[in-house]
């Protein structure tokens, strides 16, 4: 008997030729036969893969749950991690996370004031959720952003409304990651639109050349070289007495970097707009900025939303590179949390913890981008 194909499984009972037992044509057994055991090779691969998966899962569960150490006696300097050391290799040391999660999430922010960065994280997430909903895509959104970012600034710096001031050196953890990513994109996006528009100015060769050089130069070098530039070369650029702190310098480097990548995405969207749209706008007698703002950009940006979100995900992940120039973002606090002799060697646990946080943010964005792509495609495919 020939193995049932996917079509046979769905059409099976309706087909007049198919005289197989119903349970072979539809239902779970048919599904298994079609999708897991359709041929000798397929069966062998399924069994081998299943064996590997089951054995890995079992040993992981053993390590992460069964043999894991959830708590150790003592805190701070007097902590006794001998239980973790004894279980090393067999069991995870989640006691590290219990002891250090405040540090990993909020860095050296004063302990009693850590509700402030926690609230800031909530505001950031709410901001993302609102911006993702299409019913909020209008002009008022810019106002919401402005208000939210000011509230975030007040909460983080303090010094007003009875909030004790916290100097910027003590900020750290998840908040830094979110600040770098959000402000990076918020400033890089308008920049990238200008650069992308400049890149397409055939009547202004000098402007076009400037934009091409900017895009190609930035895209040709790794982000690290820009961050190094921000950390060691930037102070040389400024006149004496003028000093910008490290976080802002890194932020500028990230904005310049993201701007070049986003510009290429926006350019792709601009290129996809048919020439007739430009000509129609010209025929209406619109000025260049009216034409661009009212006719071209709304269409071009709509096309480029899915790749834009993908670039945002990339930027979110790339903020972790500031670790290399010594800024305490989420990844760096995790790395630092295992520097104390008592906790040395438990990096894997710390990294798994922050990996879960990064994954939640990036996975949500990537799922959103896929859904949006489907949604926007619906409009075009009539």
């Amino acid at each position, binding site marked *: 008997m020939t193995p049932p194909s996917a079509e046979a499984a769905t059409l099976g009972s309706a087909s007049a030729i198919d005289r197989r037992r119903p349970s072979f044509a539809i239902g779970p057994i048919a599904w298994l036969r079609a999708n897991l055991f359709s041929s000798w090779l397929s069966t062998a691969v399924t069994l081998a*893969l299943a064996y590997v998966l089951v054995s890995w899962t079992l040993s992981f569960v053993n390590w992460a749950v069964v043999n894991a150490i959830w708590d150790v006696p003592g805190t701070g300097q007097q902590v006794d991690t001998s239980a973790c050391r004894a279980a090393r290799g067999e069991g995870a040391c989640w006691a590290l996370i219990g002891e250090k999660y405040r540090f990993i999430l909020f860095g050296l922010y004063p302990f009693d004031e850590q509700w402030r960065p926690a609230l800031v994280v909530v505001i950031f997430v709410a901001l993302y959720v609102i911006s993702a909903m299409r019913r909020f895509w209008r002009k008022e959104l810019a106002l919401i952003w402005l208000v939210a970012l000011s509230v975030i600034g007040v909460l983080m710096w303090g010094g007003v409304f009875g909030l004790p001031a916290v100097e910027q050196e003590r900020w750290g953890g998840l908040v830094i990651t979110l600040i770098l990513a959000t402000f990076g994109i918020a400033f890089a996006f308008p920049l990238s639109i200008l650069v992308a528009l400049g890149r397409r100015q055939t009547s202004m060769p000098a402007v076009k050349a400037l934009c091409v050089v900017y895009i190609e*130069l930035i895209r040709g*070098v790794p982000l690290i070289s820009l961050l*190094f530039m921000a950390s060691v070369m930037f102070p*040389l650029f400024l006149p004496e007495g003028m000093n910008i702190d490290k976080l802002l310098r890194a932020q500028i480097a990230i904005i310049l970097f993201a701007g070049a990548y986003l510009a290429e995405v926006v350019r792709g969207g601009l290129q996809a707009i048919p020439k007739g749209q430009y000509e129609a706008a010209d025929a209406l007698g619109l000025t260049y900025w009216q034409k661009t703002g009212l006719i071209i950009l709304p269409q071009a940006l709509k096309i480029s939303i899915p790749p834009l979100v993908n670039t945002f995900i990339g930027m979110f992940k790339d903020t972790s590179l500031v670790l*290399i120039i010594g800024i305490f973002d989420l*990844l760096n606090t995790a790395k630092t949390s295992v520097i104390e002799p008592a906790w040395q060697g438990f*990096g894997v646990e710390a*990294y798994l913890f922050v990996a879960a946080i990064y994954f939640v943010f990036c996975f949500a964005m990537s799922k959103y981008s896929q859904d949006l792509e489907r949604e926007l495609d619906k409009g075009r495919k009539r």
Partner: protein
Amino acid sequence: MQTPTTSDPRFLRAPPRRGLALSWRDPTLRAIFWQVVILGLVGLGAWWLVENTMRNLEVRKIATGFGFLQREAGLPIGESLIPYSPADTYFRALTVGVLNTLRVAIIGAVLATILGTIVGIARLSKNWLVAKCAAVYVEVLRDLPLLLQLLFWYALLQGLPGPRQALNLFGSVYLSNRGINFPWIEWQDAHSAALLALSVGAVATWGLSRLFTARQMATGVRPRLWPWAIVLLVGLPVGAWWAMGAPFAINRPVLRGFNFRGGGTITPEFAALLFGLVLYTAAFIAEIVRAGILAVHQGQWEAAAALGLTRGQQLRLVILPQALRVIIPPMTSQYLNITKNSSLAVAIGYQDIVSIANTTINQTGQAIEGIAIIMMVYLTISLTISLFMNWYNARMALKER
């Protein structure tokens, strides 16, 4: 458009040629004005920065120029492809860094392409379990920062037991926190000759394959390639090795004191970097390969199946050549990415160009020169890869009449 042969009288008249009117309404004049303004502003900004930098360099008494390249570096480098000692110059140290970058980028690109293609095809597999595993792999690895993955692998390798309690695989491969130690042949001239013969054989096989394809096009019969391939790819190297006296001695790693001696070594830094880069990039390449295969029309699969090709033959002979046209352009940016991402090596202590240039900056204080070197190296590599891939893309492109 407007040709002398047009019979339409409207086109016979030349369009009115207007001179440059000295008016704000003239678009040409406006364009020139704005360009002058923008270039002026950018130039002014650049001049301001250069001016500040010059003054700062003077105040801080920092030397300028690339003279430091000829000075003794005095910086130790763990692994190097060319002979190097701390007594060598900065120039040689930086060359070692470039070679280390290229080493991890090239090996990484090859491995990531292989793994990515397998995962991309696996994601389209009819076997549900295989497809789901590939999907989970792609989703998880793509959504975690590469630097996090590198630190994770490095922490995992650092967590291995020391050389004395090294894990032993297959008899004489040792896995410890000092890296992977494995037996390796005692390298002699005969082996180099064999390697050379192998590359000659590969080129010859490729030429022969093209010749046979031409023959197939002319006569419809393809001569058998594989006997020739065996002679060229196996016979030639073995022959060369035999002619040079067939030396063969295996150098096994042995524990001496606190570390292994002899055999080949892969340092934990290199292993973590390569592993992280390959796994991360392969996830992106898998998506590119999958999209490329999906872009080939379903009818092509059906037509190939109707010709009686097996599924593997359908993929290899019909689908992949067409998918490659969609795959190559995004693949180029992945190769560029793997090269640029190899710069994260500095975080785990693999001495690539960024790491060595960074040390150079710290030792000499010449930040501008150091960063200029890093940027020039990456721009050169990026440009070379772009040119090569553009050439390859043009070769693979659809030949339209």
